[in-house]
């Protein structure tokens, strides 16, 4: 028995050593094969790039040897085949991704050693000002972006991304938080936010438990002049009335689906993605943009301060907003709204329906933007007061 144990232990140790050594070995091999394949694709793309570039008079610049560092969410378009890979082939460079799991993390990434290493970042519309205030973004030379004129104006000229005529962020994709309802429960289609406040819908509303969209929605409904500086008393009264109609607050998709399926709630505010998920679960749903206006969010590309590859970063932004990428992004299985107006127009009716852009998108959008901490605390306090009432 002792001998079995002794040899058994020796064998185990040998196996573990062998495994760890082989792992070292294979990773070395992997990097060398990667380097050689990169070199060959770079060489290949050099010759093909000139041939495949859309504008023959403008040769595609060769960025071989450069590595673009992109900071983004994992699995969000830029690391797809039609994203980073296509870009690498087009410009002969390499693309490296650094992923974050929250916007706070993105900022920490930059402040703790990322500056000078990271080239492009993806802030949300609420974080652009946070970044510009902390001097984390470079101004973007929009004259070099061929897609600049194709961008949706209301997104492109977002107030927080333009400072003194300089653009610090370029829109990439966007979405809305709007009204969804069960068409089978209503005889007439809904067109206005007032449906949520209608006493006929008492106890049938499912509200999103997020204080800023709740207060912004109440602001749109009560017709506030400045949604981000509303009359808080009017908002509170409106929200209390809304609460009387509300059956439950939802925080995640499942919270909404359950009572919706059993018919306990028939309308509420939601993201376009939620409506798509409901549809794919077999539930009838209509997602509309009320006439008073819709709240929207947008993800922007920005060039980080002291980016090592500024010109390549500009090419990246151009690539991310051009027809090819935006079309692929809008028609892949998780359809994302394009910001490129040419792509928007080229979508078929069915594709537009999937994006809830049929017959057309929202006419009036209120883009969620930066809110100072005191305002956020104030609004949360108001929301908690309403909920606790």
């Amino acid at each position, binding site marked *: 028995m002792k001998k079995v144990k002794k040899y058994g232990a020796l064998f185990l140790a040998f196996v573990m050593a062998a495994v760890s050594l082989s792992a070292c070995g294979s990773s070395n091999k992997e990097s060398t094969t990667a380097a050689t394949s990169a070199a060959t694709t770079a060489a290949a793309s050099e010759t093909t790039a000139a041939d495949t570039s859309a504008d023959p008079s403008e040769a595609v610049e060769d960025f071989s040897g450069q590595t673009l560092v992109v900071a983004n969410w994992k699995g969000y378009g830029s690391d797809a085949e039609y994203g980073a890979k296509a870009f690498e082939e087009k410009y002969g460079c390499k693309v490296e991704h650094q992923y974050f799991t929250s916007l*706070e993390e993105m*900022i*920490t990434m930059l*402040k703790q050693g990322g500056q000078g290493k990271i080239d492009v970042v993806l802030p949300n519309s609420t974080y652009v000002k946070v970044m510009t205030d902390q001097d984390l973004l470079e101004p973007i030379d929009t004259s070099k972006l061929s897609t600049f004129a194709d961008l949706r104006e209301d997104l492109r000229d977002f107030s927080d991304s333009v400072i003194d005529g300089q653009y610090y962020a370029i829109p990439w994709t966007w979405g809305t938080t709007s009204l969804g309802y069960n068409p089978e429960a209503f005889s007439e289609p809904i067109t206005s936010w007032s449906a949520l406040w209608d006493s006929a819908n008492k106890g049938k509303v499912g*509200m999103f*438990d997020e*204080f800023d969209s709740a207060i912004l929605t109440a602001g749109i409904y009560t017709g506030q002049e400045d949604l981000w500086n509303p009359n808080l008393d009017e908002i509170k009264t409106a929200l209390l009335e809304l*609460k*009387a109609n*509300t*059956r*439950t*607050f939802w*925080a995640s998709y499942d*919270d909404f689906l*359950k*009572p919706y399926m*059993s*018919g*306990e709630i028939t309308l509420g505010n939601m993201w376009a993605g939620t409506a798509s998920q409901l549809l794919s679960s077999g539930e009838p749903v209509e997602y509309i943009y009320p006439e008073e206006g819709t709240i929207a969010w947008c993800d922007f590309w920005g060039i980080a301060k002291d980016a090592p590859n500024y010109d390549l970063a500009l090419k990246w932004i151009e690539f991310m907003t051009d027809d090819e990428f935006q079309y692929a992004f809008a028609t892949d299985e998780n359809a994302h709204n394009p910001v490129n107006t040419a792509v928007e127009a080229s979508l078929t009716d069915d594709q537009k329906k999937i994006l809830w852009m049929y017959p057309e998108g929202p006419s009036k959008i209120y883009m969620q933007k930066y809110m100072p*901490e005191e305002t*956020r*605390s104030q609004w*949360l*306090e108001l929301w*908690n*007061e309403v*909920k*606790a009432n």
Partner: protein
Amino acid sequence: MNFKYHFKKGGFLVLPSAAFFLCLSLLPLAMLVAFSFIKGNLGSDGSIAAWTVDNFVRMFSSWTFSKLMLKSVGIGLLVTLICIILAYPAAWGVAKIFKAKNRNTMVMLAIVPFFTSQLLLIYAMMLILQSGGLLMTLLGNLGLADSSGSILYSTPAVVIVLVYEYLPYMILSLYSSLESVEDNLIYASHTLGAGRFKTFINVVLPVSFPGLLSGIMLVLIPSVGSFVEPGLVGGSDGMMVGSLINSQFSTVLDMGYGSALSFVFLIILSLIMFIIRTLTNRANKSIGGIA
């Protein structure tokens, strides 16, 4: 001299647990109290903006916290009461009525909910209670209620779910102390002429007080601070104080205010536990139990 010797002999063995207790219990508590005096959130580099008592002023300048605290304590006490009423017969049954060989199986059955995640338990309850679900269809068929409505998304639903989640704690605590009631004591009390009720009050109850107290602590404190259940099944009027504290930490990142709320919550609950303990000790003495 003796004392010194004993200390030398085994005193240092206490160090690991003492260190554990210090780092995982006392230090975080001290940090909580310290953080309740800072303004806003800690900076990303750990810096503190300012020291202030504003957080406490803010807490009591509106009725939100006090209202929610009162409501949460009320719900917690209700849940505890229902748990006590349901758990006593169950614990007594497991401890005394079932044959000794079945006892372990019974205890296992009582612990089964612990094997499942808390969220799953809540969803299971929701499935049963929801409109068109098990309960409502049954009531609809019996003609007692409309099956398209439901009790979900209201405070009773929160109470039901909390009782379902915390009943095993109460059963186990009571079981552990009811098991120690000697059968001879009960026979003796019967022999001396006490009926079943009097036996219960004067013999069984006092012996079970330690278990009762720990059961109350295990059920009351989490119930008062719960925020997942009110969020999922409480409906629009179901908010409890836990959601308020949670929103400070996860939505606005206002650590100062959140810590202040937690600190006051801690004090209030300690007071409640102190009152409950004093009352049970008084009751214990008056019934004539072992002090």
